[in-house]
Structures are given as structure tokens and as C-alpha cells.
């Protein structure tokens, strides 16, 4: 047994292929990104070291800050829109009502569909001429409410947020449902004996029991909000006039549309930094409440 567990050659052979692919493609490139980010480079010509110039240029670009702002909107949409809705759904599904299985199945469905497909479907809903939303408004005689949902500066970000909620709400629903089902029955029975029922029990017993799950969901939702790309790229491409651009799109455009690879790499490093900072802050806040 001893010899087998210490078989160094076998361990090496077993781990090596996975590690090579994983390090080579998922980890080392982060370092390369960091290296490119201090370079002025169009991908073909000479690479010139320019220090933090890319960063200072990014941080003084209004379009970048517009994209940061939109990332914040997406983040809040997740936190304020998806999480509470997912939690309410989970609590209702946990009541053992008839047909819960059906509602869970339907609720989780959008999570499985690709973001591209979700965008294309919502693109049809928002279509100005024949889209479902405008047609429906016309059907109810509310022509004056019709909008150019994706093309209008006022509405575009809101339209995207609705599609974003639609896409991911079901994920939080099943996460919370799994956590609720793990709460032992005794807790609920004890609460009932103490006279805590209905809303009060939810507020004082159930939510605190879910605290750690809620924290995980918050962190997950935030890191997801920094990764949003497909949905917006397909739906609006960041338009009109950068009104729906997010950091990932800003990076994609800088690097692959304008061929500024150094600049784009600096943006990608900022995305990584921003998301790490926000997540660290949230984790801190979560822990402080514990103490």
C-alpha cells in the first residue's frame, strides 16, 4: 500500500496532462495579459513598453466609465432582481404545493438555453416593428407606450436587464430551494411551537438559516455580472452609442475590433481587479455581521 501511494512516477503521469492544458490555457495567459497590458501593441508590429499608459488612458475614457456604470446596473439587476425573486419562488416551491415540480422545471428552463439563444429570442420580443412587446401594446390599444426598446437610449439598458433577469432567475431559485430542503423539519416545528408562523417565521428563522447560501449566491451573482458578454453583444452590440456597453464588450472591441491588444489586455486586467475587489468587500461585510 505504502509503495503504491507514493508512486511518484504514476502521480506525475496522472496529473501532468491535465495540468499542462489547464496551466497553459487558463492560468498562464493571465500573466501574459498582465505583460501585454503595459505594452503598446497592435498584434503584428513592434511591441513597445509604455508602463501604465494604457491604464491611465482607459481610466480617463468616458466610454469605459459608461461601461463600468452598465456593469453596476447589471450587478444590481442580479442582486435586486434575480436573488429576491429566486428566493420567493424557492420558498413557494418549498411549501409542497401541488404542481411544484412543473413550476420548478419551467423556472429553470432559461438557465439551460444558451445566452445567444436567449438574446435572439428577446431580440424578437423587443423588435420595433413586429416584436411581441410592441404588438401586445398595440393589441391593448396602448400604441403610445410602444418604444424602440433596444435602440432608444432611455430604454435599452432596462430592456437588457429584463432579459438578464429572465435568463438567470431560475438558477437562484434552485440554489435556494436546495438550501431550504436542507433545513431540518425540527427547526420549523420548534419555530411553530414558539408561535412563529407565516411571515415572522420566514423573516426570523428561515432567512437567517439561509444566510450562508444567500452570501454564496450574492458573490456568485456579482462575479457573474462582471462576465456578462453574450447577452449584450448579440442583443445590442453595446449600442446605441455605447449606452449598453459593459467592460467585457469594451475589451472585446478594443482588442478585436480596433486591434489594440495591449489596451484590451489592460481592460481585461481591470475587469479581473474590479470583480476581485467587489467580491472581497462583500465577503468582508458578510463576515463582519457574523461577529
Amino acid at each position: 500500500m505504502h509503495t503504491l501511494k507514493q508512486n511518484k512516477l504514476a502521480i506525475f503521469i496522472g496529473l501532468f496532462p491535465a495540468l499542462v492544458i489547464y496551466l497553459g490555457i487558463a492560468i498562464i495567459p493571465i500573466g501574459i495579459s498582465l505583460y501585454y497590458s503595459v505594452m503598446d501593441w497592435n498584434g503584428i508590429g513592434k511591441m513597445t513598453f509604455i508602463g501604465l499608459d494604457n491604464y491611465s488612458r482607459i481610466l480617463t475614457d468616458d466610454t469605459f466609465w459608461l461601461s463600468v456604470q452598465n456593469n453596476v446596473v447589471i450587478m444590481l439587476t442580479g442582486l435586486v432582481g434575480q436573488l429576491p425573486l429566486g428566493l420567493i419562488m424557492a420558498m413557494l416551491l418549498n411549501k409542497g404545493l401541488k404542481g411544484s415540480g412543473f413550476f420548478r422545471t419551467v423556472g429553470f428552463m432559461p438557465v439551460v438555453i444558451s445566452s445567444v439563444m436567449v438574446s435572439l429570442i428577446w431580440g424578437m420580443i423587443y423588435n420595433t416593428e413586429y416584436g411581441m412587446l410592441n404588438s401586445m401594446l398595440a393589441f391593448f390599444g396602448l400604441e403610445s407606450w410602444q418604444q424602440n426598446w433596444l435602440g432608444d437610449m432611455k430604454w435599452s439598458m432596462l430592456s437588457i436587464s429584463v432579459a438578464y433577469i429572465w435568463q438567470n432567475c431560475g438558477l437562484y431559485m434552485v440554489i435556494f430551494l436546495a438550501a431550504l430542503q436542507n433545513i431540518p423539519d425540527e427547526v420549523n416545528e420548534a419555530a411553530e411551537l414558539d408561535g412563529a408562523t407565516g411571515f415572522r417565521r420566514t423573516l426570523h428563522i428561515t432567512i437567517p438559516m439561509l444566510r450562508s447560501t444567500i452570501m454564496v449566491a450574492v458573490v456568485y451573482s456579482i462575479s457573474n455580472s462582471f462576465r456578462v458578454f453574450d447577452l449584450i453583444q448579440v442583443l445590442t452590440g453595446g449600442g446605441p452609442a455605447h449606452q449598453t456597453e459593459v467592460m467585457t464588450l469594451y475589451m472585446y472591441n478594443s482588442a478585436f475590433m480596433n486591434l489594440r491588444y495591449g489596451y484590451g489586455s489592460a481592460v481585461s486586467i481591470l475587469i479581473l481587479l474590479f470583480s476581485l475587489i467587489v467580491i472581497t468587500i462583500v465577503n468582508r461585510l458578510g463576515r463582519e455581521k457574523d461577529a
Partner: protein
Amino acid sequence: MNKKTPLFKIMAYTFLSLFAIMNIIPIFWMIVNSFKEEQEYAANPFSFPATLHFSNYTKAWEIANMNIYFLNSLLITFVSLVVTVLLGSLAAYFLARFTFKLRGFTYALFLLGMLVPIHATLIPIFLIMQKMSLIDTYLSLILPYTAFHLSLTVFILEGFMRGFPKDLEESGIMDGAGVFRIFWSIILPITRPAMATVVILNFIYNWNEYLFALVLITSNSLKTLPLGLANFVGVETASYTLQMSALTIALVPILIFYLLLQKQLVTGMTAGAVKG
């Protein structure tokens, strides 16, 4: 549990139903209209089709190159999945069942991948692929798909394998089996339940991936389903009903897949989400 008042039930069902309707209507509306003629759709987007125009589907299938995209997606998804699961389960086995100096570090390294947004690596990966002349090949997608899903794969399988009783391998050693023999004939078969979860998750993630495909694939004949569809809808703006047929064609298989395997998919994605 507690008694449910009729009022509570009415409110609960109203809420649940509204949510379900919101989820179903867009898809239902799209499928209904995919059977209409263009003029019929323009005249009334809410009526049921007078006759079912299945010709939309044959037309969409051809114009949108759906057969090519389906084949590409299947091939890339399948190959990446096999490589990920093979390498990932092997790595998970050594991490779970062996003790060596860098074990903790290696494990942490694999987990790190779940925190890294792919965007931070996209530009270097593009340039590496370009240097290796791999742009616009199947391999340019298979490699990143494998690399980025190794984390979750190792994580889920390692956790599962670690729970096996310690004397499990001993009978194999008695019979004189080597490490890899034990892995293949003893460990892998009992890892099946976790393996199923990992396979389904990898399938969904690979099947739905868009950003790498967008950056690394340029020729039409190599496009995957999400990329091809996005492209088709961007170009074929003349006929909405044709777009809807193409989308329905792509949607139906994944919905069937989901309905058949939903239990495993839900557990997997919650595990992936919560631990990722």
C-alpha cells in the same frame, strides 16, 4: 407542515403561474410564429397559424446551414467533453487518493480556475492560437473548452472520490493491479453518479459557449451553433418567421435534453454555482 389558508394558496399559485407564464410565453410565441408565412406574421403576431408552414423549417435548415453548425457543435462538444472527463478524472483520482508534497497546492491551483473570468485570458489565447496557426480549427476551441472545465470537473470528482472507503483499492493491490489498472477498473466504475453530473454539465457548457467561438472561428464551415445562429439572424433580417424556425430547430433538442436529464442538470449546476 403548517396549514395553508385558501388565501395563501391563491396568492402562491397566482405568483407561481405568472412566473411560469413569463418563462413560457416568449418561447411559445416564437414556436407558434415559426409556422406562419411572413405576411401572416406581420398582419397578426398573436394569431395561431391558419396552416402550418413546415416549409419554413426546411428553408431555415438549408439557408442557415443548420446541419453544419449542428455537426460542428456536436463534434467539438463531444471531443472536449471526453478529453476533459478523462484527464480530469485521472487528476481527481491522484488528488483524492494519494499523498504527496504539492497535493494541496495543485488542488488549489485547479480550483482557482473557477474564479478566473475567461475574458482575462482571451487576448493571449487568441494570440497563442494565431502563433500556432490554430485559429479557425476545431482544436482552437477544444483546448480552451477542456482547460476551463477541468476546474469544475476535478472539483466535483475529487470530492466524490475522497469519500470512498480507504480499503477500496486494497483488493486490487492484492491481485497485483497497478495504479492505472485500479483507477480504470475499480475507481472509475464507482464514480459513475458524479461522472454523469460532470458529463451533463460539460455538455451544456460546451454546447452553449459563444465568446471563444466568436474570437477563434471565422469560416462558416467551422462555426458552432450559437455562433452560426447569431450570425444567421444578423444577416437574414428579411424574414422573421425564418429566423424563428431556425431558433426553434436549435432550441428543441436542448429542451428535450433538459427535460430528460433535468434532475442531474439542476444538481450539477447548483453545485457548480455554489462551489464555483
